[in-house]
C-alpha cells in the first residue's frame, strides 16, 4: 500500500497531446476514479502509472519512490484490464499463482495463497478449470484474484466492467469496492460510466481532452461543477448562458463558505445565482440547472429564489419520474418531476410556473455544449453552442 503522486505528467503521441500536465495525489487506501469520455487520456494516464506507457514529461511517485521510468514488473502493481486477459493455456489456479511463481515463490506457498485468493472472489474450487470454462464475470473475478495474489502496492483498473453485461456490472462493481475496502489497497479506476464512478469512488477526477476538469467528491462534482464540461458530462443539465448583471451580498444563513450571490441575465430571464468563482458585472457565464432541481409550483413560488414561467411541450412518462420538456423564454428546458405530479401534467398549451434555487455557474469559456473543448483552452469566448449572450470583456 502506498500513496500515488503524479506531477505534471504528460504524454504526447506524435503531435497529439494525450495527457497534458496531469497532477494528482492519491492517499493511501483511497479509491480514485478517472472519469471522462473516450479519448480523454484517462487510460493513457493509468498506463503511465502502471509503466506500460512511458510519459513524455512529468514524474510518477509511489510514496517517496520515483517510479517514472521503472518497468511495470518493478512497480508491484495490480492491473485489471478491460478484458480479463487470463492466460488461456494456464489453469485458473496457475493464472492466480502466476505473479508469485515468476517471483520464485515455493509451490506450497503459492497453492495456499491461490486458495485464499479464490475464496476471496467466491471461486473456491474453480482452480483446476481453464479460463475458457468460466463465464465473463467469473473470468474478471479471477483476474482480480490474480492481481491481489501478489499483494500489490497499488491497484489499477482500466474499465474492468465494460465488457460485461449490465447485471453483472452492477454486482461486480460493488464486489470490487468491497474487495478494495477489505484489502485497503490504494486504487485508481478508469471508466467512462458515471454511475460506476459515483458508486465506487472516494474521489472522482473528471478528465477531458487530456486535462483535468475537476477533482472532487461525488456531491462536489454533481452539485458544484466547476466547468461547463463537467456540468454537461455528468448527468443531465439545462444550460443557460448569460451575463452577470449585479452582485449581491451573501445572506448569512444559506451561503456556503466562499460563495457569493449575483444575478445574471440570460435572454429575457434574470436569474439568481451563487458561485465560488470570482465574478464581476459583465462576465460571460453559463448557469446550469439540473432537471430534478426544478419544481412545478402552483402558488407564486415565494420559497424559491427563482421563478419562471413556461409552456409544457412534451411529457415523457418514465416510471418513477416523468420528463417534461418546457419552453421557457424561447429555450427548451428539461424538468424531471416525481410523485403525483408526474401523473397530473399533460402535454398541451398549459403554462406552468417553475421554481428553483440559486443556480450554479461556470465561466463561459469552460462551457462546451458541443463537447469540443480539446486542448486549445479557448480564450474567453462564447459558450460554444452559439446561443451565448454577447460577451463583454
Amino acid at each position: 500500500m502506498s500513496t500515488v503522486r503524479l506531477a505534471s505528467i504528460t504524454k504526447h503521441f506524435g503531435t497529439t497531446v494525450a495527457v497534458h500536465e496531469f497532477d494528482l495525489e492519491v492517499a493511501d487506501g483511497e479509491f480514485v476514479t478517472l472519469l471522462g469520455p473516450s479519448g480523454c487520456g484517462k487510460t493513457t494516464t493509468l498506463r503511465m502509472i502502471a509503466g506500460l506507457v512511458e510519459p513524455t514529461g512529468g514524474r510518477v511517485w509511489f510514496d517517496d519512490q520515483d517510479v517514472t521510468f521503472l518497468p511495470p514488473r518493478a512497480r508491484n502493481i495490480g492491473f485489471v484490464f478491460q478484458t480479463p486477459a487470463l492466460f488461456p493455456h494456464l489453469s485458473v489456479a496457475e493464472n492466480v499463482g502466476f505473479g508469485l511463481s515468476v517471483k520464485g515463490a515455493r509451490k506450497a506457498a503459492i497453492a495456499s495463497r491461490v486458495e485464499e485468493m479464490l475464496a476471496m472472489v467466491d471461486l473456491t474450487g474453480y482452480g483446476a478449470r481453464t479460463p475458457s470454462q468460466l463465464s465473463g464475470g467469473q473470468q474478471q473475478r479471477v483476474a482480480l484474484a490474480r492481481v491481489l495474489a501478489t499483494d500489490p502496492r497499488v491497484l489499477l483498473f482500466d474499465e474492468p466492467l465494460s465488457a460485461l453485461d449490465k447485471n453483472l456490472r452492477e454486482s461486480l462493481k460493488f464486489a470490487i469496492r468491497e474487495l478494495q475496502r477489505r484489502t485497503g489497497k490504494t486504487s485508481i479506476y478508469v471508466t467512462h460510466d458515471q454511475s460506476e464512478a459515483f458508486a465506487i469512488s472516494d474521489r472522482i477526477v473528471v478528465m477531458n481532452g487530456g486535462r483535468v476538469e475537476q477533482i472532487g467528491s461525488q456531491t462536489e462534482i454533481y452539485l458544484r461543477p466547476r466547468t461547463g464540461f463537467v456540468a454537461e458530462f455528468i448527468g443531465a443539465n439545462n444550460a443557460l448562458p448569460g451575463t452577470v448583471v449585479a452582485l449581491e451580498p451573501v445572506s448569512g444563513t444559506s451561503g456556503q463558505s466562499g460563495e457569493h450571490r449575483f444575478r445574471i441575465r440570460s435572454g429575457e430571464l434574470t436569474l439568481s445565482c451563487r458561485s465560488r468563482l470570482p465574478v464581476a458585472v459583465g462576465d460571460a457565464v453559463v448557469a446550469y440547472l439540473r432537471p430534478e432541481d426544478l419544481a412545478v409550483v402552483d402558488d407564486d413560488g415565494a420559497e424559491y429564489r427563482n421563478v419562471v414561467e413556461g409552456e409544457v411541450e412534451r411529457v415523457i412518462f418514465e416510471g418513477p419520474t416523468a420528463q417534461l420538456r418546457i419552453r421557457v423564454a424561447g429555450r427548451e428546458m428539461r424538468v424531471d418531476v416525481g410523485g403525483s405530479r408526474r401523473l397530473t401534467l399533460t402535454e398541451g398549451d398549459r403554462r406552468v410556473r417553475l421554481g428553483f434555487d440559486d443556480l450554479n455557474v461556470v465561466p463561459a469559456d469552460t462551457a462546451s455544449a458541443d463537447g469540443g473543448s480539446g486542448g486549445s483552452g479557448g480564450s474567453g469566448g462564447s459558450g460554444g453552442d452559439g446561443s451565448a449572450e454577447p460577451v463583454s470583456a
Partner: protein
Amino acid sequence: MRSSPALPASPLPAGSRPPAAARRPRLSSRRLWDALSHAYIWAVLVVFILPFLALVGFSFTTRPGEAGVVTNYGYVLDTFGDNLLWSLKISGLTLLINTLVSLPAAYAIVRHSFPGKRLLFSVLTLPLYVPGAVIGISLVLTYNFTYHLTTSMWGLVLAMALGTFPLMLTPVVVALKDLPVIFEEASACLGATRWQTYRRIVLPLIGPGVSAGLLLCFIIVFNEYLVTLFVHPPGLTTAPLRVFNQIRTAGLAPTTAALAVTMQLISLAAVLLFFRLFGARHLKGTYLL
C-alpha cells in the same frame, strides 16, 4: 425425414403457412449437396494418395532373380541408415538455427517498430522466391572463399537454414500478430521479466505457429535435393540424394521404392510428432488428431 416435427410451430394461421411439401425437396437437395461434397473430398484424397500407394505396392514386389520383400527393406536398413542419419542431423541443426533466428526476429518485427521494418521483412522472406538452383550456385561461389564450409556439414546446414528460415519466420510472425499484446502486459504487471513473459506466456501461445514453421522447414530440409546437390561436402550423402543416386544407378527398382517409402514414413512421423509436441488447435477434429 424429420422435416415436419423439426420445424418450430408456426404462429401464422394455417392458410398462410408455406406447404410442407415445398420444404422437403429443399432439405433433400441439401443432403445431396453434402453427399457430393464428401464424395469430392474423398476423390481428391484418393487422387493425391494413389501415386504413393503405387509406390508402396511397388516396394513390396520383387524383380526376377532377386530376393523377396523382406530383402527390399532389409537393404534399406543395412545401407540407408547412414543417409537417414545425415538427413536427420542436417534437419535437426537447421531447425535449431531457424528457431534461434526466427523467434527473436519475429518478435522484433511484430512488437517493435524501427525504420525499414517492412523492407527488412521483405528481404528476409526473399529466399522463398529464389529458385533452388540459384541459391545452390550462389552458395557454391560463396563457399569457394572458405575452406571449412565446403568440407564439413556446416556448409550444408547453413545452406538449408538460408533457404528455409522464412518458412519458419512467416508463421511465427502471423501467430504473434494474432496474439493480443494484453497477455504480455498482464504478465509484466504481475512482475514477470521479459524473458519469463516470453517463455511462459508468449511461446506457449504462439506454439501452433512455431510448430507449423518447424514442420514446414523439416519437411523441406529433410527432402531437399537440389541445393544439397550443389553444396554437399564430399562423403556426405543425405537420404534424398541417395534416392536420386539410386535411381540413376539402379533405375526404378523395388529397393529404391523401399527407400522412398521409408523417407515418406519418417516425414509423416515428424508431422504427428510436431503436432503432439507443440499443439495444433487448428487441426482438432480432423483425421490427424
